[in-house]
């Protein structure tokens, strides 16, 4: 073979700690290498042109680039060599940046390491084979998980782009967190007034099929051809009949049910429609509170329902949908405030969370927008906000910033001033984070125009003092201990991964970080893609973010899907397992272990049965290859011989070293 080696300096990123020139010189001595050079930035246009020129002039049939991680630029360089007429798979990278120059402190050792990594890559390329993709059909339907603002935006954009959309929402109504909010910052728009029309659009769009009160049971398949099993949970109300008239709610005798929409600061009926603008506006029974379920008799709703929609015997229903891509927009959760023992949250009624306060401020909320102390219903004279309640706190395992609390606290402080004449408002903060458009002006207004007192410091304890709450903290600007008596304490609780986020990630085979937020492909350059082809992210499931960012990501994910579906057929990844039929002994151990069911039996003309890989189903994990005793099934681009060649090349280097 004629292999060319291109060693990158990456400016000083590699060049500073690895002698790239020396690596290139050493590479010239390796078997199969006919050309080797080093360059300042191999990924730059001139750097790529250099490769293309060398391929032509030196008649190269294999290329090794020693540079950054292949997870970064493998595809870039594959396209480069393809443009020069080489099969794009006749290529490999030696990672001499992330795995070498950036982590080793000894330039000489780094250079030796880089040289050995190049030698291994050359040995691997010498065993590469030309691979060719085949085309397969794409199912141009998209599944959107989560009917919050990000998911709805994604669904609407996809649907407007002509795609069939399946939108699955866990709750009975779409809307998500934004539907719980009273106003939005920094414009102090009515949240439901700007969200409501979008919810209606989603419900009425003829390209969108909406499943609410539904969850994902199972996802199978691969990009272009996913199969989702969706569990439609039993609402015990036949939604084809329910008109949302609300008569059942009026008559339901179980009036102490937990009110999820109002975050538990109010109670609701066991059969309920969560809020007046709900879409679809359908009732659901909460069996934990319904007397028919807990006591075995009642039946009031069934009697009063004018359309006879109530069905206590209803069971969950599983539906199957076939789609080509999935957008995950499952949002975020909020910290269990029981974790914040020092604030007495959960123990003292007048210590509440921001989202509870939001419901209290809302005109259609349980208090009709009147600010009241939960303990006695009195109007507070002094309200204290505590930001970073659980965020930016390594001791609670959440060192990250929850992103939007500073802004909603400013908004709620302003609204408090608006709602309660003469009220005093204090905000304890660590830093005010207001980097969005118009955000800094907004927090300034809260302080300067509305007279909200901002105290830079943390609160160590909240405890009852008579009828009021004593907030004890520190003012770090004054360097003094502070004690403020408050009537109401509002916590800016940490945003967490949504409950069940990890289980869903496992079904989707996407990664998540240590906090449970989903991992994007690349934090800068591929923010809405995942490492699983055909699965995209939008909104706060990827990390806490505010409404404009979530909407932006919803549209971004939709545009990714539209781009993916702009072709009728997709090229399959040829880096899959391939059976050498002459060597297969037909033991089918590969079939037993394949996680994807990608291996079928094929009968040869002499009647012998051998394994055969279904091209589109194989994901290229190589489990079969390490299972097959005779090595008859080989993962292309990562065959036994290629790995053995890498090990042997390394061994040669070791021998020369000693």
């Amino acid at each position: 073979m004629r292999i060319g080696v291109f060693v990158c300096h990456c400016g000083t990123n590699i060049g500073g700690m690895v002698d790239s020139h020396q690596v290139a010189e050493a590479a010239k001595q390796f078997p199969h290498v006919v050309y080797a050079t080093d360059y300042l930035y191999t990924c730059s246009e001139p750097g790529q042109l250099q490769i293309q020129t060398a391929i032509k002039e030196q008649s190269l049939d294999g290329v090794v680039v020693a540079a950054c991680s292949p997870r970064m630029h493998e595809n870039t360089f594959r396209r480069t060599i393809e443009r020069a007429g080489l099969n794009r798979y006749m290529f490999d990278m030696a990672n001499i940046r992330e795995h070498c120059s950036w982590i080793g402190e000894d330039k000489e050792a780094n250079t030796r390491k880089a040289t050995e990594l190049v030698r291994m890559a050359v040995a691997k390329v010498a065993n590469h084979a030309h691979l060719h993709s085949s085309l397969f059909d794409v199912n141009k339907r998209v599944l959107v998980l989560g009917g919050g603002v990000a998911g709805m935006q994604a669904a609407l954009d996809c649907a407007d782009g002509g795609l069939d959309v399946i939108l699955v929402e866990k709750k009975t109504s779409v809307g998500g967190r934004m539907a719980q909010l009273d106003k939005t910052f920094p414009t102090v728009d009515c949240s439901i007034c700007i969200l409501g029309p979008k919810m209606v659009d989603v419900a009425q769009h003829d390209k969108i099929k909406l499943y609410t009160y539904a969850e994902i049971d199972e996802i199978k398949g691969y990009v272009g051809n996913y199969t989702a099993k969706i569990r439609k949970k039993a609402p015990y109300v036949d939604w084809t009949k329910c008109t949302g008239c609300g008569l059942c709610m009026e008559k339901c005798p179980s009036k102490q049910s937990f009110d999820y929409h109002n975050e538990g600061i109010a109670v609701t009926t066991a059969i309920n429609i969560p809020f007046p603008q709900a879409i679809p506006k359908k009732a659901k029974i909460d069996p934990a509170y319904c007397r028919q379920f807990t006591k075995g008799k009642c039946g009031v709703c069934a009697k009063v329902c004018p359309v006879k929609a109530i069905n206590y015997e209803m069971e969950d229903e599983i539906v199957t949908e076939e789609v080509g891509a999935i957008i995950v927009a499952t949002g975020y959760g909020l910290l269990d405030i029981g974790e914040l023992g020092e604030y007495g949250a959960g123990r003292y009624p007048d210590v509440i969370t921001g989202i509870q306060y939001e419901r209290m401020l809302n005109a259609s909320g349980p208090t009709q927008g009147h600010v009241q102390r939960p303990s006695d219903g009195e109007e507070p004279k002094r309200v204290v906000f505590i930001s970073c309640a659980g965020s930016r706190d390594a001791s609670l395992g959440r060192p990250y910033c929850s992103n939007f609390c500073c802004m909603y606290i400013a908004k709620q402080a302003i609204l408090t001033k608006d709602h309660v004449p003469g009220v005093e408002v204090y905000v304890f903060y660590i830093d005010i984070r207001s980097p969005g458009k118009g955000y800094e002006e907004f927090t300034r207004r809260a302080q300067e125009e509305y007279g909200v007192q901002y105290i830079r410091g943390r609160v160590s304890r909240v405890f009852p003092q008579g009828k009021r709450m004593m907030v004890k903290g520190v003012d770090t600007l004054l360097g003094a201990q502070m004690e403020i008596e408050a009537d109401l304490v509002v916590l800016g609780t940490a945003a967490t991964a949504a409950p069940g986020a990890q289980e869903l990630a496992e079904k989707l085979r996407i990664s998540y970080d240590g906090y449970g937020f989903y991992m994007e492909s690349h934090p800068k350059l591929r923010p809405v893609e995942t490492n699983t082809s055909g699965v995209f992210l939008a909104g706060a499931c990827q990390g806490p973010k505010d409404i404009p960012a979530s909407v932006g990501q919803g549209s971004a994910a939709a545009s990714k899907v539209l781009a993916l579906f702009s072709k009728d057929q997709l090229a399959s990844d040829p880096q899959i397992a391939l059976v050498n039929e002459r060597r297969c002994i037909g033991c089918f151990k590969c079939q037993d272990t394949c996680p994807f069911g990608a291996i079928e039996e094929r009968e040869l003309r002499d009647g012998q049965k051998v394994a055969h890989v279904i091209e589109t189903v194989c994901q290229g994990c190589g489990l079969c290859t390490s299972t097959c005793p005779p090595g008859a099934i080989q993962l292309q681009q990562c065959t036994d011989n290629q790995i053995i060649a890498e090990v042997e090349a390394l061994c040669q280097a070791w021998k020369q070293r000693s």
Partner: protein
Amino acid sequence: MKAKRYAYYPGCSQHGTAAEYEVSARAVADKLGITLVEVEDWSCCGSTPAHTVDHVLYGALAARNLALAEQMKLDTMVTPCPSCLIALKSARVMAQDKEHLQELRELIDLPLKGTIEVKSLLQVIFEDIGLEALTAKVKQPLTGLTFAPYYGCILTRPPQLAQFDDAENPVSMDKIIAAVGANAPDFPFKTECCGAAFGLAKRQIVQTLSAKVLAAAEAIAADAIVVACPLCHQNLDLRQEQVNAFRGARSRMPVWYITQVVGLALGFSPHEMGLDKHAVASDAILAKWETHLKEHAQ
């Protein structure tokens, strides 16, 4: 039931200012089927003064006691004092690091593994004995009495080290108090600092902080404060007159050790529990209890 054996590290207070804590701890342990085997030739745990000077020496002081306890072939060492607890636990964590372990071994010149478990006496009563077994042994429930459970600042902190109860809102003493039949209302100051060792150097700090604890206990109408720490006891009980003078109050708030509370319920007399040794007399609360018991008997 076979008595469970623990290596016992009393700490210096138990032999001085907290003699009644020692007496009650040993009596209660015995009654609950716990054998406390005092570590022979134990020495200072290092406590606050050492760790402000040199961390490794601080570790070594405590580690010597760990090493001695390890030679006793018992799996757990128990101490009544939270300050000792943190010192011993810190040394144990330090010993998990190979380099530090070597340093410690050289300093104390004893074989050290750093494997022995360290627990507070409170944790042993709460977890190893358990509320159920405790309730079963109660002879005279402390009905009608209200206690303010005061844990102090280091019994549960830092949580990574303490590995016991909730750091910010501990409930173990609350539950023990309830188990012996008394009330333990929500006490917001349960983990605030009393001023601890500042009593000698900066008395005003103790006065300021302890005053708040005492006031908070009065606010919840407690008959007594319950502590599990000799230093807390010293500041709240012995210095109560000083604190009163400082805050212009005439508080006579008894301060009991948790072991005294349990001991009383298990049938020991107030004298046996050393309740007559405190600076603030317990006559009123004991009288109230007696009245209550009589009424109950009728």
